């Protein structure tokens, strides 16, 4: 199996001089849920933001190394970054609906991509809501404001909004941080189904969540990958002392 994403010797430094990532090497396989975990400020979110080049928004950063998506360098000059962000879509920690209706949120990315056909938009909206397990709850009020939804519904809407773009990769930056246990379970449930179709890279809320949802997991500390491997192995039989200390709750 060839890697969907190949990260080679990736380093990243913020304008204030903080080196967030140091020489990262990772291979991420398709149709899997890949978990990046580690203490805060270990570089997880920075890595996610590099994968769809949201990192471009910050001026004066320094990057070295490559990220290959299906073998192609995502930082190459010829790459259309907007197209890239449709292929590699992102869900954020805080559910952030855009002002407007539920429907507007769902089709926002499509409209921006220039898709005007109403039938296509309707179809994509419905499919993605079903995938995110939100369809039954909102099908009768698609024109209501997205701000009227509950926290858990908002986050599933954000997931659906990403899915509507039919991405290949979904980046999830701690998507259940603000949610109650039931909503968290609902989101995890959807992810379980989605990973059969998409490549999912997730920063989890906790070590427990990492163990619950991950297929492959990577442990990050101070911008370095300490250990990477199957979920079952990392949590049961970590090779590195630091990984063991972290998963058993001795620090972090």
């Amino acid at each position: 199996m060839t890697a969907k994403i190949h990260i080679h010797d990736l380093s990243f430094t913020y304008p204030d001089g903080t080196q967030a990532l140091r020489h990262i090497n990772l291979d991420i396989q398709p149709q899997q849920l890949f978990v990046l975990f580690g203490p805060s400020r270990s570089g997880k979110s920075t890595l996610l933001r590099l994968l769809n080049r949201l990192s471009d928004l910050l001026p004066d950063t320094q990057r070295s190394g490559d990220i290959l998506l299906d073998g192609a360098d995502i930082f190459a000059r010829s790459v259309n970054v907007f197209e890239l962000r449709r292929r590699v879509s992102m869900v954020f920690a805080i559910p952030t609906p855009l002002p407007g209706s539920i429907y507007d949120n769902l089709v926002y990315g499509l409209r921006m991509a220039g898709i005007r056909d109403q039938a296509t938009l309707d179809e994509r909206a419905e499919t993605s809501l079903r995938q995110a397990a939100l369809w039954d709850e909102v099908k009768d009020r698609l024109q209501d404001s997205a701000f009227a939804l509950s926290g858990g519904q908002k986050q599933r809407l954000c997931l659906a909004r990403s899915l509507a773009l039919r991405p290949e990769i979904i980046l999830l930056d701690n998507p259940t941080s603000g949610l109650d246990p039931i909503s968290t379970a609902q989101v995890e449930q959807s992810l379980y189904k989605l990973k059969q179709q998409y490549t999912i890279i997730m920063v989890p809320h906790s070590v427990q969540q990492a163990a619950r949802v991950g297929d492959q997991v990577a442990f990050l500390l101070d911008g370095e990958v300490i250990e990477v491997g199957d979920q079952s192995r990392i949590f049961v039989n970590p090779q590195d002392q630091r990984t063991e200390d972290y998963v058993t709750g001795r620090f972090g």
Partner: protein
Amino acid sequence: MTRQQSQKVATVLVTAVAIIVILPIFLVLVYIFAQGWSALSWEFFTQPPRNGMTEGGLLPAILGTLFLTLGTAVASIPLGIGAAIYLAEYAPNNRLTRLIRLAIVNLAGIPSIVYGLFGLGAFVLFLNFGTSILAGSLTLGLMTLPVIISTAEEAILSVPSEFRIVSLSLGATRWQTIRNQVLPHALPGILTGIILGLSRAAGETAPILFTVAAFYLPELPKSIFDQTMALPYHLYVISTQVPGMPLQIQYGTALVLLLIVLTLTLVATVVRTIMRRRRQW
């Protein structure tokens, strides 16, 4: 004097000064209303001045001010909003940006009469627009620019940055993000700034003295290349240049000008309040 006493004296003093500042503002408003009220009539708003301006109404001056305000809007809004977008969304933190900000502060500080001189030299003479609504509007427009830029920039910056990031993460371009997620939500603030800027322009006299204002011109302008009367200049003319002018008409004119300017200010405040209430986040 004990500390408690000095504290008491200080409090009284400070309160007294606040009253000294506030009371005259209040008195000015009340006095102009009281003195000018009786001059207001249907004729006052719909007739041109007659009989050496000692009778009749203000129609050409009111309409002139209206035209100039519209012209100011056309001249200043696109450039002002564009500059605000640039500063809020694009400008890198570099020397050029600091220079732009310095220029804006200085534009705000240039005396209005100097704008008038510039309008005379640049628009009336150099571009050969003559003494005209066009020249006057451009002059007032430039003067209004700093107000519009700074209020619009503030409004744009007040839009939560999450909306921008989400929009970009969904594959929208920078301009699409500004167009769809930033400007609509900044609109109330931008509008407020525009109206406030225009209310200032409507009341200005010095910039229009040599660029557009006519001493007495009962006919309405036919094109943007015509001169026009304008309320602020008209008030100046009838209060200092026309002997034997009935005081009532002078106060009435001051009241009409004040009403126009204050109404605009009020509209700006109402727009801001309503739109804020409708805000969802």
